[in-house]
């Protein structure tokens, strides 16, 4: 068991990138991974990404935080109002779960194919992961803290931003040219894979 922790930015439905990154992390000794949310939408494989992440989580290898896309997904399923989720690009997630052309009653099709274990898992996702020296959450917090802050959500281009007090990890995964980034703690090194899951960068923060 490694003492290292990996913090992973937005995945957005890209299963190849997720698998590629996990492969890279496994080669480093399989650190515990804290995923910073936004597992669904944009990429084509939201359902498969969720399935894989839940398996990591059940095996105790990962902590899954909620992102704003999970919050909108949960809100849509709880209220039965898909509008806001669709405006955020929820179509990709619905298609991924339904697996075929949806019928006129989209909510019914989606609910019928969205596994209850996924719903329970999304409902249980915490927003924050905190330890003595760091705090990680999807959206950058408004309140200041002396701890090291790790966030995603806000696009920062191809490379993560790693400073003395904070790191930002949303490097566009889910788009064709995007990358998936993991920050390694405590070294503050990072590893990245491209949209196909091939390793592209290993940098020092």
């Amino acid at each position, binding site marked *: 068991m490694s003492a290292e922790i990996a913090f992973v930015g937005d995945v957005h439905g890209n299963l190849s990138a997720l698998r590629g990154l996990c492969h890279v992390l496994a080669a480093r000794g399989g650190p515990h991974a804290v995923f910073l949310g936004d597992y669904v939408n944009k990429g084509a494989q939201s359902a498969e990404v969720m399935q894989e992440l839940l398996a990591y989580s059940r095996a105790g290898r990962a902590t899954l935080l909620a992102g704003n896309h999970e919050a909108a997904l949960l809100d849509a399923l709880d209220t039965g109002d898909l509008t806001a989720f669709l*405006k955020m690009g929820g*179509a990709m997630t619905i298609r991924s779960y339904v697996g075929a052309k949806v*019928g006129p009653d989209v909510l019914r099709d989606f609910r019928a194919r969205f596994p209850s274990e996924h719903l329970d898992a999304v409902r249980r996702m915490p927003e924050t992961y905190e330890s003595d020296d760091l705090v990680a959450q999807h959206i950058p917090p408004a309140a200041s803290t002396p701890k090291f802050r790790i966030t995603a959500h806000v696009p920062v281009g191809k490379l993560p931003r790693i400073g003395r007090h904070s790191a930002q990890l949303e490097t566009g995964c889910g788009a064709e040219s995007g990358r998936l980034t993991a920050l390694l703690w405590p070294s503050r090194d990072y590893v990245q894979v491209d949209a196909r899951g091939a390793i592209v960068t290993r940098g020092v923060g």
Partner: protein
Amino acid sequence: MIRDDVVSALLRMNVSPNVLEDFPELPGEVEGLLVYGSQARGDAVPGSDLDVLALVAAPRPSTQSGDVNVSYYTREQLSTGIGTLFGAHLKRDAKMIWDNHGHLTRAVEDMGEVDTDRLLARARSMSELFTSPERDLPKYLPGLLRQARYLLRSCLYAQAIADGDSCFSVRELAVRHGDPYLARLLASRQPSEATVADFDECLSRLRGIIGEFPPSGHGSLEATVVNEWGRPSDVLAMAFMALGATGKGSDYAEMEKILL
């Protein structure tokens, strides 16, 4: 150019001082400014909006203050108006207020002609969005009515161009068509909530121009958005806009700015 200079220029164009009271401060990066619509044509009536287009370097959302609407466009966004009704409208009616580098003037000159046959065919394909009202109206009437108005207005403009007598005034079109109700139906500012009656009035006039609508391939607005997502299409853009504004705007997926 500062706000006072803009307001003075607009007063010289006979824009009502009442309307100009609401004229907002403009961001410093604005490189050019023009007026379009009824105030530019000089056929504004009391209650008419002032429509202003500002050229900027980076995209920013449109604003509305009182009766003044300011839409911000980059040169790239404006270039998507070439061959569209919006572009033809600017080319015919816009009045330049100021233009630091001449970019805005050139962008408007480059707008070109509208292919009206193509536009009406596109409008017809988009109209499939209105063929599942039982499922959609309870939830999406305001958005669907807005898109029906947009489509009807666009088709009327295109028809006028095709007839060799272009016109971008709904009041003038109402007179031409002997249809006084049209002016109220298509007014940019609607005094009351969306009604099914107005929706039906729009659709019957739209059918009069483009014929029967093709049946929906998806059976509902939401299914159209889900099934069409990822392949850029007119019907997807229309459906996405018909969802309306809800939730946090900053989280929205991006869509193109100019359609027809």
